[in-house]
């Protein structure tokens, strides 16, 4: 009898999990976030090991959301906002320079004559650094301005943090 009771409760629990029961309200409605998510994600690395006191390169991988594009570091028009990586630098962790990839040509359907220089999909920014022995954090933000085919969105900043271990 006890077994029968347990089975009945298990079946009921499974039923409740599979579909909404009349006393359950909307599960997702209240948790909808109206703030638009970032158009660019920092992918990796989270941690790197480098030789202390020597020039080293950290390759930082980013992904632009599907259907979106951002201006490259060197847009073709001066009124466009370039993608920049702003990082904190210190004597412990010196950032010598940043190396951005070349942009790809992009043409808006409504502006067939104008070619834009943009990043879509995945792209890599190479940070040239020199670190003293120890553990440091390379912190910064990727400043970008994204558009889709019909709309453009205000400039935003995506945070990055890389744990740098220099030996």
């Amino acid at each position, binding site marked *: *009898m*006890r077994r*029968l*009771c347990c089975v*009945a*409760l298990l*079946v*009921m629990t499974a*039923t*409740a999990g599979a*579909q*909404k*029961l*009349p006393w359950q309200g909307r599960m997702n409605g209240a948790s909808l976030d109206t703030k*638009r998510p970032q158009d660019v994600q920092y992918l990796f690395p989270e941690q790197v090991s480098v030789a202390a006191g020597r020039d080293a390169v950290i390759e930082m991988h980013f992904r632009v959301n599907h259907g979106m594009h951002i201006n490259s570091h060197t847009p073709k028009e001066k*009124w*466009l*906002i370039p993608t920049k990586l702003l990082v904190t630098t210190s004597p412990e962790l010196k950032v010598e320079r940043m190396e951005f990839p070349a942009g790809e040509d992009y043409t*808006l359907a*409504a*502006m067939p004559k*104008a070619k*834009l220089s943009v990043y879509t999909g995945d792209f890599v920014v190479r940070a040239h650094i020199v670190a003293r022995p120890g553990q440091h954090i390379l912190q910064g933000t990727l400043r970008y*301005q994204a*558009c*889709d085919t*019909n*709309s*453009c*969105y*205000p*400039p935003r900043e995506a945070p990055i943090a890389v744990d740098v271990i220099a030996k």
Partner: protein
Amino acid sequence: MKRNILVITVVLATLGIMIWAGVANYRRQQHEQSNLKRLQAMIEATEPQSAANQDDGIDENPLQGKMAPNFTLTDTNGRKVSLADYKGKAVVVDFWATWCPPCKVEIPWLEQFNKQYSAQGLQVLGISEDDLNLDNKTELAKEKKQIADTATQLKITYPVLYDDANVSAPYGGVDGLPTTFFINRNGKIVASTVGLAPREQIEADIKKALSSGGGES
């Protein structure tokens, strides 16, 4: 014996709840399906309408049909401009930015419509959503000059206003640019577009703003 009766009662009650839940769930699904069918029928019925009426669907801006929030901003000539100044006119409020390519496609159309429909009572107002550094006078002056220079390059003759008071917030926190609101002669928002809309749709929305609201109290 008593224990067995108790267990049987619990099991029967559990089964009863499950049956009730199943029946209620089935009824709810039937009700949702019937609602869905009704909605689909409504959508099919509205499909043949022109592009100009596409913004009347379920995704319409929540401000549609409401009074346009008033604002007072300074234009590129240093003049104070209020939406209320244009009472009795149909007004197009275009949120744009100097760094926005689709905005630069739409602006020449708006410029042309502003001239074409001016005699009928149309006024276009551009509101720049470029960042303004209000804490640094030198930077602010530079940023304002850039907006004014861009307006000149684009040959805009209608007022271009600096949004130094975040007036985009009462307009729903304009995010995607261009965002354009079409306001009738009584100050009600009759249409809006987010992103670059077809020229024909913009013209149809202008006509809608011009033709409605004049007789309302």
